[in-house]
């Protein structure tokens, strides 16, 4: 049994999750919970297993043992394409945009789950597919306006500055109206000014949405998070409020240890 801290009302949790890849024990009895309506951080030195936790939560990796629960219910055989239907959206390290689609189409893709349509109706371009397409487009444009990227709607990601691409990627995650957001290093590669904006944005989503944040920028994590889990070498080593984590000897040792290398 690994480090365990019982939380009341976690909306998303992993329970005793173990993952072994190529003979390496990547996650060891990882049990973490994300309190409803919170912004929760998942931090740790490089190679700690943070993204692996995200991959387990989003169905890209099946754990050797342990389980993932949403609203207390165990998810069996999570498939990534079912996440949005469960009200969960995930962003990827980098931006993960489709270079051949315009910014608008990239965001529309995130909204497809909210618009019902059929393969045959679409293939035959039946009249009501037009209305659905318009609905999809309107939803995407509304979220793009919120993220101040509507003016680049018809441009392809390769033509856009990196911080704008990041915002488009966030818009795509938000357009499905998720109740849980998994953000994987959203501040990577953006300036201090953009990071402050991002922090404000993330804080504004709670408590309507629950956010689990993997991030290396400690300033951002300490600023926006209500609760933080710390991983090191595949195990949970600490958990608590930003103040508690900041002064936790195990956390200091993990980070100082990393710096010493």
């Amino acid at each position, binding site marked *: 049994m690994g480090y365990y801290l019982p939380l009341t009302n976690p909306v998303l949790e992993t329970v005793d999750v173990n993952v072994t890849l190529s003979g390496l024990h990547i996650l060891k009895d990882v049990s973490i919970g994300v309190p409803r309506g919170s912004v929760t951080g998942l931090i740790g030195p490089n190679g700690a297993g943070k993204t692996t936790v995200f991959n387990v939560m989003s169905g890209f990796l099946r754990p050797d043992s342990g389980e993932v629960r949403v609203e207390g219910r165990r998810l069996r055989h999570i498939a990534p394409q079912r996440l949005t239907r469960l009200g969960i959206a995930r962003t990827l390290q980098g931006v993960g945009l489709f270079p051949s689609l315009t910014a608008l189409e990239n965001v529309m893709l995130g909204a497809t789950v909210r618009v019902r349509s059929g393969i045959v109706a679409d293939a035959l371009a039946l009249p009501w597919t037009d209305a659905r397409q318009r609905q999809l487009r309107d939803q995407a444009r509304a979220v793009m306006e919120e993220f101040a990227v509507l003016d680049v709607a018809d441009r*392809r990601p390769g033509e856009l500055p990196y911080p704008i691409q990041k915002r488009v990627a966030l818009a795509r995650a938000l357009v499905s109206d998720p109740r849980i957001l998994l953000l994987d290093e959203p501040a990577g590669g953006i300036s201090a000014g953009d990071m402050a904006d991002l922090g404000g944005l993330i804080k504004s989503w709670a408590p309507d949405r629950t956010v689990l944040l993997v991030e290396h920028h400690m300033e951002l994590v300490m600023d926006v998070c209500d609760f933080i889990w710390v991983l090191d070498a595949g195990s949970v080593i600490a958990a608590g409020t930003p103040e508690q984590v900041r002064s936790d000897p195990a956390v200091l040792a993990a980070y100082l240890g990393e710096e010493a290398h």
Partner: protein
Amino acid sequence: MGSFVDFFLGGVANGAVIALMALALVLVWRSTRVVNFAQVGQAMFTTFVGLSVLQLTGSWFVALAVAVIAGALLGLIVHVLVMRPVRRADSSGAIIATFGVLIALQSLAAMIWGGEPRSYPTPVEYVGLEIFGRVFPITPYDILVLVVTALLVAALAILLTKTKLGLSMRAAAFNPEVARLSGVRVSRMLAVGWVIAGMVGAVAGVLVAPTSTLSPNSFDIFLVFAFTAAVIGGLDSLVGAVAFGIGTGLVLSLVTGYSDASNAAIVALVLLGLNLWFKPDGVFSHHKARSV
């Protein structure tokens, strides 16, 4: 020796069929990121199915409809039985597997229908149009082929760019993992890509059969021409496939007219080589970098 106008008109008509086959290649590429070298084999097989139905019913259009349905089914079968398992193991193996499918389909067709060349009738006349007493080398059938090509391109363009299905197909092909996170059922989209390409290939097969003969290997040369057109067009561009399909038809017609028919395939390969040397992304491609 005929005039330039004659070669030009003949080239446009031949090019329309090349364009259709190139479209099928582009569709599979766009939806699965695999160059389907079995496309001509699938088209040949479904054209044989069409011919059997034609002999049974006597209706050219019923035969076309059955061939299209057979194309959809064959596309699905190839995807489920061959491409899906192969892609799980190794993505580059998928392209090699399409050669295997091509050889298997040609062998199967030879076993079922024999290796003798067959003729495939046309639904409308296949003699040059006479205008003001001059006979042009473009027939009512060529015009039918051009119209069908134009309609198919328009329908496919609408499907891929104006519908949720098209958006999901494009996303699934490019980055399956990110597409899945957006709720796209990637496996289903790949299957839809193979089905639609199979249908377009079937139309191409039935339309090209009357202009040559039908035998298990008779469409092989169209693979060279269609592949050339699709690659020069940018491989992911429907417009590019059509433009360079017709362009390839034109060039081949001029080469055949002014030199010898046996030079046509060589010229196609030279064009392909020049394209890969000077503009490997293709003329209509949105992307940089495509490995060759």
